[in-house]
Each structure stands twice: as C-alpha cells, then as structure tokens.
C-alpha cells in the first residue's frame, strides 16, 4: 500500500470544515480550534454515523403518516374531498399536465425514499468497511445531498393552494395533517445528509 495517498488524518493534520485551513493540532486528544476562523476542529464529524442513523430512522417512521394522511381538504358547497400526496399527483396527471405530475412524483416520492435507501447503503458500507466503489458512493452521496431540497416542492404547492382558495362558503381549501409530517420528513432527510461525513466512505475504502 505504499502508493496509497495520504490523508490529513493519517498525517496528524486537520482541515477546517468552515474555512478549509489545514492545521496541525497540538494534541490529538483535544484538537482545539481553527487558528484562522475559530471553528472547532474535527478530524471527522463528531458522531456522524449515530446522528445520520437517528435522522434516517425518524424520517422513515414519519414517511408513513406523511403519505397516508391527507395534505389538502377541499370544501365546496355541501361536500368536501381530502387528498393525499399521491392523490394530488393523480389529479395533476388526469388534468392533462403529466410533466408536472411526474416532477411532483419524483420530488415527493422518489427523492425522499431514494435518499433513505441510499444513506442506509452508504452507512452500512462505512460500518462494514472494505468499500470497493468509493467513487460511485461519493457520486451517490453528492446526488442525494443536492436533490434533497426539491422534496419541499409539495409543501410549497399545498401552502399556496391553501392561501389562494379562500372563497367560503362556495370553495375553500384546508391543509391536512399530512403536510406537517411530510415537511418533517424532508427536513430530517436533509439533516441526515448534512450529518453524514463523506470522508468516512474513503476511510472505509480499500482501493482508495
């Protein structure tokens, strides 16, 4: 393994997560603070694996009510109709705007679910070790980190539908309990991605 490149951690150095400055801490037991920006120095993000698991599990649990409960209830004179997220996608599709239906489907279903599966896969690789495809895993991590925020799409759609359809008693729309759960899923999966330290993938790699 002599040709293997050296990491900062192997050389007793730390790259500051805030400003990027490379420094040599006096003691490895307590790394101290970055001399340039004053941020606390960490060789790897503290408790990255535990935090990421916690956020994933919480998001997975809330994912169920987020999709079962209605996000919008439409009241028209004398009747009302409740829609879950998937019902909203279907009604967009049947009204003829299938590209938008597809976008909402991807943002609301594929991205959160894909994030949970992908982060679980990455965490298991980090914990088991012997990772062979670190570059592909890194690409996967970047993809889920960038796309995560788009899941908030449906929350914004519901917000502005509720804010606009205010014609009681003829027609009005109320938000359902599903919106809060769905919002929590999006925020938790974003926090999960932010607390995962990609450097752990490379620490576990055997073909670095």
């Amino acid at each position, binding site marked *: 393994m002599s040709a293997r*490149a*050296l*990491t*900062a*951690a192997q*050389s007793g150095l*730390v*790259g500051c*997560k*805030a*400003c*990027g*400055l*490379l420094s040599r801490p006096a003691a490895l037991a307590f790394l101290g*603070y*970055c*001399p*340039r*920006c*004053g*941020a606390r120095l960490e060789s790897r993000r503290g408790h990255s694996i535990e935090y990421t698991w916690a956020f994933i599990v919480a998001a997975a649990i809330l994912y169920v009510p987020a999709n079962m409960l209605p996000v919008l209830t439409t009241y028209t004179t004398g009747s009302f109709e409740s829609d879950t997220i998937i019902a909203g996608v279907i009604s*967009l599709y049947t*009204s003829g*705007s299938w590209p*938008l239906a597809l*976008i*909402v489907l991807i943002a609301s279903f594929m991205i959160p679910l894909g994030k949970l599966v992908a982060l679980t896969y990455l965490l298991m690789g980090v914990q088991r070790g012997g990772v062979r495809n*670190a*570059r592909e895993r*890194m690409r996967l991590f970047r993809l889920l980190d960038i796309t995560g*925020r*788009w899941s*908030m*799409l449906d*929350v*914004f*759609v519901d*917000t*502005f*539908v*509720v*804010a*606009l*359809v*205010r*014609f009681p008693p003829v*027609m009005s729309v*109320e*938000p359902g309990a599903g*919106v*809060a759960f769905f*919002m*929590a899923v999006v925020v938790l999966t*974003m926090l999960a991605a*932010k607390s995962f330290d*990609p*450097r752990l*993938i*490379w*620490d576990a790699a055997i073909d670095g």
Partner: protein
Amino acid sequence: MNTALETVACPGCDLLQTLPPLPHKAKARCPRCGEILAVHPPDPLERPLALTLAAALVFIVANTAPLMEMSTLGREVSTTIVGGAHQLWVHGEELTALAVAFCAVIAPAAYIAFMLAVLLAVRRARAPRIAGELLRWAILLRPWAMDEVMMLGVLVAIVKLTQLATVIPGMGMYAVGVLVVLLCEIMVTVDPREVWSRADWADGRLPRRVLGSARAAQ
C-alpha cells in the same frame, strides 16, 4: 491573486494535496473523489457584491408584491410569500408555516444580508474577523434558501388551480424568478478563499494578504 502554493485536505475525502496556481475561471478538483477544492473567478469580490445588491432589491419586490391572483364568482384573492405561510398558521399548521417562512423568506434574507456584509467588509485589504464568521453562516444557510423550489411549487399550484378558476401569476412571481438567477450567480462568482485571505485570524494573526503586501513593501 492566490498564486502561492497551498496544501489543503479535501473536504470530501481528506486527501492531502497541493493546490496549483489556478488560471482565471479554472477549478481545482480532487483527483480521488472529484470534490471542487478551489475556484478562481475573474472578479471574486466586486461582481458578487453587485449581484448581491441587486438580489437585495429584487428580494424586497418578491416579498411585497403578490405572487399570484385567483378570481372566481366576481371575487379576487391574491397571496404573497409570507401570506402563504400566514394562511398555514391560521389553519393550525404552525410548524409547517414556520418551515415555509424559514425556507422561503428568512434563509434567503439572511443569506443575502450576510453576503452583503461580507462583501462590503472585504473591500478593504484587511477585514474584521466577523467577515469570515458571517461567510460561514451564509454557506450553512444556502441549502435552506429554497427560492427555486418555491417557484416550481407556485407553478404547480397555478396549474392545479386553473381547473377551478382564473389564476394569473403576479409581479412577485417574476421577481422570484429573477431572484433565483441572482442567487445562483452569487454562488458561482464569489471566491470564499479570497474572503479568507483578507479576514483577520481568530488567533490575532494578520490575514495573508496584509502579510504579503508588507513583505512586498520591504
């Protein structure tokens, strides 16, 4: 400007490497994991400052003008961004209302304000330490400023509602569109390393730029 060789640890994989002197518009990528390590935009402080000033003005329009209007049965209803969050709050979805307000108003506002403060502070060769601190906060907040997601959300809402009544996008909607482009441009034109080279160090040392010019004067 940053022609001195600098050794860095890749934030993506921790690999130690020396950054080569970068030509304008070039990026340095980590050979192992592909992370972007450094950028060298041609005008790393003045151009983002102009863009940030523009973004601040557009932000005010985007948040005061109506996003869209719906009219049916001779009645009209319009909403702003904050108005949307407010309606959620009124209907008992306080938590979601706060999240919407944070991602659509507070995070972008703070991002623009912090970047404005940073870019004004580094106009001098030696900037106070707070410039670096605010830059750090701005970078942390950036993923939570979801203007482009909100804009798509408004478009989907308009399509959904056109089945029920006449819905037209308002001035605020166009302003959000411009804001999305400006926020994107700020990100690509600014060079955080240039900011760090001008801000005072936390341990009291002078920034690299000041040391460099002192050495040149000798």
